[in-house]
């Protein structure tokens, strides 16, 4: 993009400039995404069906929500390893709240649902605040802090639930947030995901807070010298991360229909993977909402495609691992092209 501004390029090299500009901005992802989609479709024609396309979009929306959460801290040159276990903890805790108010849907169901969502976000925000305060104000490495929080959240999730799923939550949760379609067209998780994406886009691009996340991720010392209250913003990034993760937890709980202490297992790797594959930089200060969407779609296409083509589950793990490393490698390449 920026290359084309440099001056009167010869028309012969226009396409060349456009080509590299496109990669510099979006990376190789859109191309790989399309190649994968077509590739899986050729192996398994069912992959091309409309139902499958809808399924991909629906399934990826869960991951995109979590990856968006993760992006807020990745931008600050941090990461949140506790995200998965916070999802478990929130799932169990909010299920217990809902089941307490309206066990098996008998009682004030709406109030139960609202209380559940409120509890989820509150608990998420609290976990995020603890992470954020430790990272931003006490300068403890995010790896250590969020690893510790992972243990705490896992312990709380299993203790609260006794290790078993919370079964007696209202069915309406599943019906309203996982099944069917809002306004007759849009599946609820996709709608929630779009709302979160739009809000995140606005916050990141149009607010001083969002701008500051990029600046402090690129160089926190520079924001300090520039008089930006970066510690507060850095802390808030963790709060927002865990709060969005809590919303994701509600969506996943609704899909499962039960509060699950084992929900969060692989979600940390997947959320970081989706963001990083999409092009959010692990070194902080770079990443856009579109990156997360592309990354989430890619991971989902890969996993659904491998399921449909009956790739062994363990092999799938290997593929995901390779794709993450490969994505970071391609990111380095993208930086070079930009230079």
């Amino acid at each position, binding site marked *: 993009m920026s290359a084309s501004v440099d001056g009167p390029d010869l028309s012969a090299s226009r396409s060349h400039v456009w080509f590299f500009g496109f990669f510099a901005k979006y990376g190789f992802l859109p191309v790989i995404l399309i190649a994968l989609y077509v590739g899986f479709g050729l192996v398994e024609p069912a992959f091309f069906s409309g139902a499958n396309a809808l399924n991909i979009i629906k399934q990826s929306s869960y991951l995109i929500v979590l990856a968006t959460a993760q992006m807020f801290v990745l931008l600050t040159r941090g990461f949140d390893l506790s995200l998965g276990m916070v999802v478990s903890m929130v799932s169990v805790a909010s299920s217990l709240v809902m089941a307490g108010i309206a066990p098996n849907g008998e009682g004030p169901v709406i109030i139960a649902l609202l209380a559940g969502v409120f509890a989820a976000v509150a608990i998420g925000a609290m976990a995020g605040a603890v992470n954020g305060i430790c990272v931003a104000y006490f300068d403890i490495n995010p790896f250590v802090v969020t690893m510790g929080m992972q243990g705490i959240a896992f312990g709380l999730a299993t203790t609260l639930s006794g290790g078993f799923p919370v079964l007696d939550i209202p069915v309406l949760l599943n019906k309203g947030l996982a099944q069917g379609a809002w306004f007759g067209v849009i599946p609820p998780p996709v709608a929630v995901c779009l709302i979160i994406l739009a809000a995140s886009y606005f916050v990141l691009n149009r607010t001083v807070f969002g701008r500051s996340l990029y600046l402090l991720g690129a160089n926190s010392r520079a924001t300090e*010298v520039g008089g930006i209250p970066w510690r507060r913003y850095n802390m808030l990034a963790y709060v927002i991360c865990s709060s969005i993760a809590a919303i994701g937890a509600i969506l996943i709980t609704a899909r499962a229909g039960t509060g699950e202490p084992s929900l969060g297992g692989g979600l940390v790797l997947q959320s970081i993977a989706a963001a990083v594959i999409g092009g959010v930089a692990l070194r902080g200060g770079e990443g856009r909402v579109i990156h997360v969407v592309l990354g989430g779609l890619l991971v989902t296409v890969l996993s659904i495609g491998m399921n449909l083509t009956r790739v062994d589950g363990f092999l799938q793990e290997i593929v995901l691992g390779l794709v993450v490393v490969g994505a970071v490698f391609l990111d380095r390449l993208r930086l070079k092209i930009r230079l």
Partner: protein
Amino acid sequence: MGTQDKRDMASGDTAPVDQSGGSDPSLLIEMKGIDKRFPGVCALDQVDFDLRPGEVHVLFGENGAGKSTLINVIAGSFAADGGSYMFCGEKLGRLTPYHAREIGISPVFQEFSLAPDLTIGENLFLGRELASVGVLNKGEMRAQAKSVLEDLGFDLEPHARVGDLPRAQQQMTEIAKALLREVRVLILDEPTASLSERETDRLFEIIDRLKSEGVGIIYVSHRMAEIKRVGDRVTVLRDGRKIGTVDADAVSEENLVEMMTGRTFDAFFPKIEHRPGDVALATTGLTTKNRQVIDVDFSVRAGEVVGIAGLVGCGKSELARAIFGLHEITAGALMLYGKTITSPTPSQMLKSGLCYFPSDRVAEGLSLSRPIRENVSLAALDLADFASKGFLKIGSEKARAAAIVDKLQVVPLDTEKQVEFLSGGNRQKVMLSRGLARDINVFLLDEPTVGIDVGAKTEVYNLIKEMAEAGAAVVVISSELPEVLHLSNRVYVMHRGYLAAELTGEDITEANVLAHFFDRDHETEETSSKISEGSGP
């Protein structure tokens, strides 16, 4: 010093020194047409250089002129891309740092090559440990280390841990390390930057002795007095090209600056009309928690440029940082336009019209991976021009950033370009643009021209002139003495955290400033306390 270089070179221009076509075996080093390219830059362009036995050949030039690259080529750290390199009449092929040391080329770089966790003795033998059948001969190494240090007259204990030493002693360790073996060419890169006067004298004695032994010394320095004192010949580099080699005795400071910058002396340092008005910023008895600034009384008036000079680590930078709120103040008062400020913070000082521009642009000045526009507005996001109620005004920001970038002539003018793709000079302009993005009346510039090219330097000087003449109070903290000397209305010299002197008018000379770099009172105080500490049984 040979007689042939006593030719008249007072003109200071490109005076050829050795015109003999073939190689001269009496020369220690003879380089012809050396080229060295790095991606995007030509660091050395057809540079000739030679070194005679028993002379001190000074390399002089701006940051980025190619001095470091040249000594790195000489020491074998970089391979030249072109040209010939003869050592004692023999052509050198691919030289490695190891091979260079083997043939007696010993470099002392500014970045120390010491292992901080090892002792001085262990560092001296690093990579060339004495051993028999793979077992270290510690006793022998200790004895040799001790004798070398004594021989040099350095007051160093071989078993002291290098990481615990002050910078000056690390520098001496580095020099001792270079002299441990038989040396034929000694390379010294700004060796006195962190040495005290006494240590500097000692170093010069050693240099004199080495010269009499026929060792050739390549000496990189900025200090005029030093060049006169130890230098025999001076080679000036600019933008990777050799401008000329002149006789150190015959050349004037003006000449050297003109050769170094390619501009007349007056065009390089603009004449600033200082019109000192009200006191803009003043401190009394300012002391920081880390004791890097102690009891400093300092002031700057509107409409004047005040320089602060001193050695690396003397507290000159810390003074400005403390005023801006980056170091905790434990005692003393700070007044901005007559208003007392108790515990300053960057945001509060910016709001009051004072801005500090850090010396290390990469570490704390700029967000490199973000576009120019976001760096211009970085310190002004609280202003209505850029945001209101926490929401950004992108359109207005774009317009303001474009106007500022246009005024400062940042290349490229494209405000969406990431700062990491800019040259040093343009990065500096982007950082200085902060002073234009909001109302700033007091500028604290910490090493404002470090790592930028000559053209950008002139622009920065002119900007300083413009700001001061428009009534701003400007503080220039710099290790480049000429800069402090020629821009300032008054000069403060700091030493070990204390204010050592305030110079005005005619008294602002290099000799006067340097005299206070090593204020003796504090030094003896410090040394005596060291002795009492270390004299225990």
